[in-house]
């Protein structure tokens, strides 16, 4: 059906609406797209947030993810009854969990992993597994294992394949019978790392008896997992568990909030929430401003029509409704664009998440209220943005409206402006006076462009910050090539053995012990890392990134840990050691250092051993390795019984960069696109409005003999000037947005430094300038086609 036909069905005022909208379609679309970006971001982040949270909850519920985990050194199985009898325990189970080194065909470097016991079929009640393919192991066959899906996928392992594992010092050949998912490893990450590396962290499940046998834990367990009853005070239960398990070498029970996979998952959900809270309102604010300018201007040009309609007997409300409909149509088009965009982005994000978070299912399904909020909030923002214009429509008296508005008065220009006026040519004077005459509009334009640039910086800086964090973490703090963890603490002399391993150039000992730190009501389950006085590989640094030597006495705390414990230098901190003789002492905080990952406490190695009343024991070593001999070293480590875990810096760094490119890269790309659209929306709308306001003025200049270039300068020169003014503002807004994001992403897991590189500022400025030039060219085409004849006859 042609337009002419359906338009006949509309009432005259609605026909005017359709035609008016058609005549400003470019501007209307630009506004709708800006609204769409905001809504799209909202639908994506909120929808994903809800989908992730619901998926997580359903997964945890269905597979009975433990509320509390209580690791011990060794406890008799009979203790289970006592644990089950504790108030608040709905159900408890025991298991064996241990670190292993894995050797898979085709992988040169040794792989760190974990192995867990499972009861013979039926599966465990707590922390159940999802059998993805293959079958459950046969309890009769001790070498049969189940493997975590992500790891199997990364190494293309299938049921029937084999792999090797060092179980408590003995290398064993294992057969895979099944590939599984587990709520414990939604985010499968090696402890101490920040991004998951499917290739370098593997988890195996094995029959309880076989594993007990391998780890000398027959009739015993080394971890209890607990489901709590609803309404249980978890802290109290953890306290009771710790008391009960103290004798068995408990390192401290912990809840889901300390479970590493859940921590990362929660962190991601919180980040989505932050993005959903900060970014969409910025877009909608810009959209409100655009609507304000465009509708305001439209109403100015339609003064006489408004007066006429009122003179004919249309009520104030009817005329105002006419304009409200126009605002509503633009807004709703924006919302529709936004919802479609949000669904599309959300599906993409869900696919990306499937790579990081291993759920049996993950559907991007925003709840209905997301759509309702999108519509409601957009209309509200549009209403607020255009309220003053609509009020002006209501207040226009017909008689006054039908007289053209008085010419704008430029006589009250600022004195400073007039002082510089003689120095510039007439067109430049027009630019300056025009800006001065409508300072609010100029300010809003500058603000709008500035916001788009700020958004770009806010989106892209995270890449700088992450790179900086990685650089500091891997090249300034942890400078080792390889970290080796022993199965049990060994005498310091073991460092000599390590030095004799192939390719090892330097070896530096460390000791890590589990502790509970208490400062008043603030309690943290942490590790103290004992280092040499002036370590050269695994270092600690101050806020200026200078290495900090470890004092003979006292503790050095990570800045985040100090913040969580609310403690400062010179204060005493209660330290409860959860290993060996379990001493409990008060130690002085002798320094606070900068860390970007984790919340570690540091001590002088000798002081730590004195505290433990042990003679110079170490739990591992940092190594510097001859790059030509890494393969020989890897081969040797894979066959060293005393080694429980190996972490390789280079691979960790590469995994980090890859993850960054995949996830953050996509995020930055879309934000650049969105911010560019905002810049285009703001600049294009302003140029179009200026053109429609000043078309007559510019056309008469053309008649007077000014060239197209000279006339374009008057209009586009103003926009260029405003864009230039907006650049420093944009840099400032970007910095503030980055600071806000840094603040809200500050978690126990990692902190993002507020680092914005010059190239990020430059890139943001470039995108804004290019967007402005693009909009300028679009408008320039219209300037070239100004109707020179019409101006001779028409009145403003």
């Amino acid at each position, binding site marked *: 059906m042609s337009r002419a036909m359906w338009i006949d069905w509309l009432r005259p005022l609605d026909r005017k609406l359709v035609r008016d909208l058609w005549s400003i379609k470019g501007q209307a679309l630009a506004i709708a797209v800006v609204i769409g970006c905001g809504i799209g971001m909202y639908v994506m982040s909120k929808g994903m947030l809800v989908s992730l949270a619901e998926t997580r909850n359903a997964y945890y519920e269905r597979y009975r993810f433990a509320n509390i985990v209580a690791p011990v050194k060794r406890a008799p199985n009979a203790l289970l009854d006592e644990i089950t009898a504790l108030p608040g325990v709905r159900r408890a189970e025991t298991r064996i969990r241990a670190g292993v080194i894995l050797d898979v065909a085709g992988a040169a470097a040794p792989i760190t992993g974990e192995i867990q016991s499972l009861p013979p079929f039926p599966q465990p009640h707590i922390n159940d597994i999802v059998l993805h393919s293959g079958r459950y192991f046969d309890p009769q066959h001790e070498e049969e294992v189940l493997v975590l899906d992500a790891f199997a996928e990364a190494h293309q392992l299938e049921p029937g394949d084999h792999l090797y594992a060092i179980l408590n010092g003995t290398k064993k050949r294992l057969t895979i019978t099944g590939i599984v998912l587990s709520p414990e490893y939604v985010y499968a990450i090696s402890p101490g790392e920040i991004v998951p590396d499917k290739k370098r962290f593997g988890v195996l499940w094995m029959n309880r008896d076989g594993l007990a046998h391998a780890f000398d834990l027959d009739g015993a367990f080394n971890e209890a997992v607990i489901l709590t009853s609803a309404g249980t005070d978890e802290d109290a239960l953890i306290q009771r568990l710790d008391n009960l398990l103290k004798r068995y070498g408990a390192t401290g029970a912990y809840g889901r909030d300390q479970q590493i996979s859940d921590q990362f998952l929660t962190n991601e959900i919180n980040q989505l929430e932050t993005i959903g809270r900060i970014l969409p309102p910025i877009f909608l604010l810009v959209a409100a401003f655009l609507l304000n300018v465009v509708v305001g201007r439209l109403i100015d040009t339609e003064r006489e029509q408004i007066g006429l309609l009122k003179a004919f007997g249309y009520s104030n409300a009817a005329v105002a409704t006419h304009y409200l409909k126009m605002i509503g149509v633009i807004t709703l088009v924006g919302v529709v664009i936004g919802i479609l965009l949000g669904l599309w982005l959300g599906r993409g994000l869900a696919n990306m998440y499937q790579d990081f978070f291993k759920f049996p299912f993950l559907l991007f399904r925003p709840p209905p209220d997301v759509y309702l909020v999108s519509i409601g909030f957009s209309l509200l923002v549009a209403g607020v943005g255009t309220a003053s214009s609509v009020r002006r429509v209501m207040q226009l008296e017909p008689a006054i409206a039908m007289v053209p508005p*008085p*010419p*704008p*008065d*430029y*006589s009250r220009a600022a004195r400073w402006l007039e002082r510089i006026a003689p120095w510039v*040519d*007439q*067109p430049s*004077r*027009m630019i300056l*006076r*025009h800006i001065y*005459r409508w300072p609010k509009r100029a300010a809003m334009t500058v603000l709008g462009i500035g916001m788009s640039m700020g958004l770009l910086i806010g989106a892209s800086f995270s890449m700088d910050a992450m790179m900086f964090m990685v650089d500091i973490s891997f090249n300034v703090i942890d400078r080792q090539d390889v970290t080796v963890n022993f199965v049990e603490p060994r005498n310091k002399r073991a460092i000599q053995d390590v030095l004799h391993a192939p390719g090892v150039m330097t070896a530096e000992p460390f000791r890590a012990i589990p502790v509970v730190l208490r400062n008043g009501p603030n309690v943290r389950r942490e590790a103290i890392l004992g280092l040499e006085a002036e370590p050269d590989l695994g270092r600690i640094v101050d806020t200026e990134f200078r290495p900090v030597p470890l004092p003979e006495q006292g503790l050095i705390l990570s800045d985040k840990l100090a913040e969580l414990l609310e403690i400062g230098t010179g204060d005493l901190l209660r330290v409860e050691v959860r290993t060996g003789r379990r001493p409990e002492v008060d130690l002085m905080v002798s320094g606070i250092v900068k860390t970007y990952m984790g919340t570690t406490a540091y001590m002088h190695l000798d002081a730590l051993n004195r505290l433990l009343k042990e003679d110079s024991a170490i739990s591992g070593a940092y190594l510097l390795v001859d790059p030509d001999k890494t393969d020989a070293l890897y081969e040797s480590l894979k066959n060293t019984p005393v080694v429980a875990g190996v972490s390789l810096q280079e691979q960790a760094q590469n995994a980090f960069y890859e993850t960054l490119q995949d996830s953050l890269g996509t995020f930055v790309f879309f934000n650049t696109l969105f911010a560019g659209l905002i810049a285009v929306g703001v600049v294009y709308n302003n140029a179009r409005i200026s053109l429609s306001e000043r078309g*007559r*003025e510019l056309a*008469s*200049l*053309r*008649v*007077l*003999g*000014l*060239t*197209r270039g*000279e006339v374009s300068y008057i209009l586009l020169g103003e926009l260029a000037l405003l864009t230039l003014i907006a650049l420093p503002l944009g840099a400032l807004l970007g910095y503030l947005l980055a600071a806000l994001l840094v603040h809200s992403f500050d978690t126990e897991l990692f902190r993002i430094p507020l680092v914005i590189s010059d190239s990020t500022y430059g890139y943001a400025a470039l995108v804004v300038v290019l967007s402005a030039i693009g909009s300028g060219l679009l408008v320039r085409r219209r300037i070239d086609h100004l109707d*020179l*004849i019409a*101006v*001779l*006859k*028409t*009145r*403003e």
Partner: protein
Amino acid sequence: MEDQDYPAFRAEGLTKIYGSGDTRVYALRGVDLEVPRGEMVVLLGPSGSGKSTLLNILGGLDSPTEGHVYFDHQELTAFDDQHLTRFRREHVGFVFQFYNLIPSLTALENVALVTEIASNPMSPEQALELVGLEKRIHHFPAQLSGGEQQRVAIARAIAKQPNVLFCDEPTGALDSKTGIVVLEAIARVNRELNTTTMVITHNAGIAEMADRVLQMADGQIQESRVNETPCEPSALSW
């Protein structure tokens, strides 16, 4: 190179058609015309008679569907947009019915806008003095009356010392008293600078001040009459 006997403008068979098919409108139907140098020409005629279209074509704002226009020895109808812009810039002054001053520039600056890009302009002050506004040069358009604004527009049009001055209904938005002041300014420019001047009006009274009166109707020149005794604008009334 100026040849005093050669006409300022010569047009041959000018036809202008707007639209196509059923909606074709003939604005001009084969107009032939010669405008001698330095003359004051008044174009009279009702709305739609084609006088504005003719003026637009002569002024280089529009091009005819058929026919040729010569300015001095050059064929305007052969010019591209760039050349037409240069033609307007160097040789033509325009005065509009609604003044079309730039509100953000003072009277002096509005004139300077044109003198800055002209090759042989008079000073803006001089141009404003010629229209009797030497005392109002620093006022913005919003601070000037309609008649004063129109006189600024005339000063702006003649400051570059154009060969021709086109005025489209210059008094159309003014009362008769103010209109006469404006016409006096136009007459003075024509007389003192020897600027060929064409004034469009539908007000027959104004024709009394012209050297030549062209009466237009239906896209054709119905009558071309030479006025042997043009009178002073102050003697006009309507």
